[in-house]
């Protein structure tokens, strides 16, 4: 005998049992919801279990949720605590069947009423059934949200009363389950015929008798059993089912007002929900709004929403500032939580300190413009490695070279290349400027702020490190800074006109740190470098395409890039002055005249002599001018011969 048949034994319960079976078999239009009203102990829970069992039997994979309202409230609060309400909501909203027992207990859990109301609405909209049990009519429940009362009234109400003797007998026999002989049948029947206020009393009595029988050698008689359980006589008349709510004019009016009001008042939930979606979608934590949503009764969301929006917008502004000031802070967790505004402000304050004006690489020293020749291959190789992997290969890199060899260009070009690769901020400054900054730090606070600025640089590039000689405080700060940046894996590049071991007046500890990196020499520009420099300087002039001119200029003796620049500038200036296009002939005229001038003067004084062939002009024959040797003056020769 199935659970439903047990209930079918009582005429009064047949409607409830039939409705329950319809739900279990999903053979009808959803009752949405089916409300089972019956006094305590009338078998409501039993009916729900029967529905669940039948569904699981016919559809083994079906998800059936059978919950008391206390259990539901507990799970709901647990889900709230671990911020998994969506998951819990999904479980209940998506279950094949939801069975809610002791629905009247919901008045004890006002914080869950909104959730349950949403649950009923959602399942109704989805055509999914909910069956719930009540011990009193919904409209007699005080403390139940009117929206819920209305939802219940919209469903189908069936009543359940305490089963009659036959029904009770069937239930008790089913309770005995697999051990039907645990009690003599007359005893079971006697219990079923006894008078108790609720079905629970019958099953309790049955359990007591089973326990007694197990401990007793003699089989129980019906009379003994009744005496043991202290059962009185005949069962009183079954209480009538709860009456359905009347539909009157006022009720209809009230229903409309409730619907309208619920719609209006519940807008706050939508407002908050929309805000949660919006800010959550923008990657911000919405704990404050989530808490608002979990409020049991409506609250005015506007002040909270306005405050949250203000905080969220400020937080987004702070995040942007932080990203600009210190890219390493971009995406920091603190900037995703408007509740951590104070911490975020402090972080941005720090970022502002550390990022405030740092000298950047000069833009005119472009990485692409750096000329490379056989003699500069090593420093350029190191520079390219640094650009590829900042802070990982050679840090610090120390470029040693005479004045004018292009150290500054290489330093700034490297700085620009690093900045182009996202290494930020790249602090690039001369040693004089560095020493001046340190010298200007008046107090400990200023020193701390200054240190903070430099501690967070992406790369530090200092030109002419030899100029720190005589500035012990700057050296000390630089030494500390180098240590910190090394620990942080930041890239450092320094230039010096003298080899490190020859630097006078530099603290050996600083020198040790610098020598710990890579020291490369940038020699005087070779011909390839000179040609590249000449071509770059001629670019954009009317002689940009004159290969002969470029070749000639690059062949001129020059021990530095700066000298090459001077040569080119002289030719361009003369061409501009004469109003002609720069040419090899003009270049020879300008440069060799300059050379010959002093040579002739030297000949007059007997100090030096130059040899070479002057070009007849128009660049047909190239000058083969070459210094072979210094020819000693007459006096020197005489002295030499005498010796």
């Amino acid at each position, binding site marked *: 005998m199935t659970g439903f048949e047990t209930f079918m034994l009582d005429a009064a319960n047949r409607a409830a049992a039939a409705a329950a079976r319809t739900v279990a078999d999903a053979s009808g239009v959803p009752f949405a919801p089916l409300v089972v009203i019956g006094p305590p102990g009338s078998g409501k829970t039993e009916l729900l279990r029967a529905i669940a069992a039948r569904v699981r039997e016919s559809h083994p994979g079906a998800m059936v949720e059978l919950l008391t309202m206390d259990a539901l409230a507990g799970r709901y609060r647990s889900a709230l605590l671990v911020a998994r309400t969506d998951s819990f909501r999904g479980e209940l909203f998506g279950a094949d069947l939801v069975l809610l027992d002791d629905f009247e207990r919901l008045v004890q859990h006002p914080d869950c009423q909104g959730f349950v109301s949403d649950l009923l609405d959602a399942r109704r909209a989805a055509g999914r059934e909910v069956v719930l049990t009540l011990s009193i009519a919904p409209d007699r429940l005080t403390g139940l949200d009117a929206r819920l009362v209305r939802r219940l009234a919209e469903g189908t109400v069936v009543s359940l009363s305490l089963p009659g003797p036959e029904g009770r007998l069937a239930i008790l026999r089913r309770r005995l389950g697999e051990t039907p002989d645990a009690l003599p049948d007359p005893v079971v029947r006697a219990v079923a015929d006894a008078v108790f206020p609720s079905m629970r009393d019958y099953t309790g009595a049955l359990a007591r008798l089973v326990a007694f029988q197990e401990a007793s050698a003699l089989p129980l008689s019906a009379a003994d059993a009744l005496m043991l359980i202290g059962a009185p006589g005949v069962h009183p008349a079954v209480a009538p089912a709860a009456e359905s709510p009347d539909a009157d*004019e*006022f009720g209809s*009016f009230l229903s409309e007002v409730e619907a*309208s*009001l619920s719609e*209006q008042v519940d807008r706050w939930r939508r407002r908050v929900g929309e805000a949660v979606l919006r800010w959550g979608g923008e990657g911000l934590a919405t704990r404050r709004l989530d808490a608002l949503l979990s409020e049991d009764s*409506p609250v005015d969301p506007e002040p909270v929403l306005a405050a949250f929006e203000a905080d969220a917008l400020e937080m987004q502004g702070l995040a942007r500032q932080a990203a600009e000031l210190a890219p390493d802070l971009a995406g920091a967790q603190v900037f995703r939580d408007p509740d951590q505004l104070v911490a975020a402000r402090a972080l941005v304050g720090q970022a502002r300190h550390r990022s405030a004006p740092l000298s950047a690489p000069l833009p005119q020293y472009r990485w692409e413009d750096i000329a490379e020749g056989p003699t500069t291959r090593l420093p350029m190789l190191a520079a390219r490695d640094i650009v590829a992997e900042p802070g990982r290969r050679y840090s610090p890199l120390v470029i040693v070279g005479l004045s004018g060899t292009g150290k500054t260009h290489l330093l700034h070009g490297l700085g620009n290349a690093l900045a182009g690769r996202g290494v930020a901020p790249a602090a690039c400054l001369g040693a004089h400027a560095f020493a001046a900054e340190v010298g200007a730090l008046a107090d400990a606070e200023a020193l701390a702020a200054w240190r903070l600025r430099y501690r967070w640089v992406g790369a530090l590039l200092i030109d002419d490190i030899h100029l720190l000689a005589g500035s012990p405080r700057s050296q000390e700060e630089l030494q500390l800074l180098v240590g910190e940046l090394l620990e942080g894996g930041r890239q450092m590049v320094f230039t010096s006109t003298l080899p490190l071991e020859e630097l006078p007046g530099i603290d050996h500890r600083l020198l040790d740190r610098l020598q710990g990196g890579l020291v490369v020499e940038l020699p005087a520009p070779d011909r390839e470098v000179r040609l590249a420099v000449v071509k770059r300087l001629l670019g954009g002039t009317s002689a940009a395409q004159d290969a002969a001119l470029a070749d000639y200029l690059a062949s001129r003796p020059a021990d530095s890039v700066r000298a090459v620049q001077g040569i080119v500038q002289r030719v361009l200036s003369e061409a501009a002055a004469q109003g002609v296009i720069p040419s090899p002939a003009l270049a020879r005229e300008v440069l060799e005249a300059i050379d010959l001038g002093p040579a002739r003067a030297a000949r007059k004084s007997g100090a030096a002599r130059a040899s070479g062939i002057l070009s007849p002009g128009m660049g047909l024959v190239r000058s083969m001018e070459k210094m072979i040797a210094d020819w000693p003056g007459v006096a020197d020769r005489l002295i030499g011969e005498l010796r």
Partner: protein
Amino acid sequence: MPLVNFTTREITCKLVYYGAGRCGKTTNLLYIHGRVPEQRRGNMVSLATQSDRTLFFDFLPLELGTISGFTTRFQLYTVPGQVYYNATRRLVLQGADGVVFVVDSQARRFDDNMESFQNLQENLLDQGVDIRTLPLVLQYNKQDLPPDLIFAPPELDDALNFRGVPSLPADALHGTGVFETLKALSALVLQRLAVRAPGS
């Protein structure tokens, strides 16, 4: 404007039945009073003259219970229709969330209706309320009378309802259209729910 007070969890709406003398305002309230369960209604206060005309006003409080967590109250008022009680009418009209203008459909009362309607507009204007912004419903009462004595709703619409507000035929004495009118006005009023922040 009806207020949702989140501090006290209360919603209170004041609805005023307005119209010419003897048009059926009090009858509306009496009918409603008779249909409201006892626990839902307060005592209907009616201050009437010896000739059963409303001297001051009728007041019927309705407790609608807890809706969405709010204790919801509707307060229904009528104004004295007689011309010489305008001061009382103004007083009652103060703070109204919505107005039912009850029209006596009898042809012979047409001018009284028009005069009362103009009076309503003037009184609202005196209080700085534009009638176009106030929830308003027209109730064409006494439609149960012989057709040759009354104007039909379309005719009354032509004459009075130039703003196109909801209008309903009614027989307040027997209840026809009474709750429909109340529902129509309630719907309009509740659409304008304003939220008052705590402490404001």
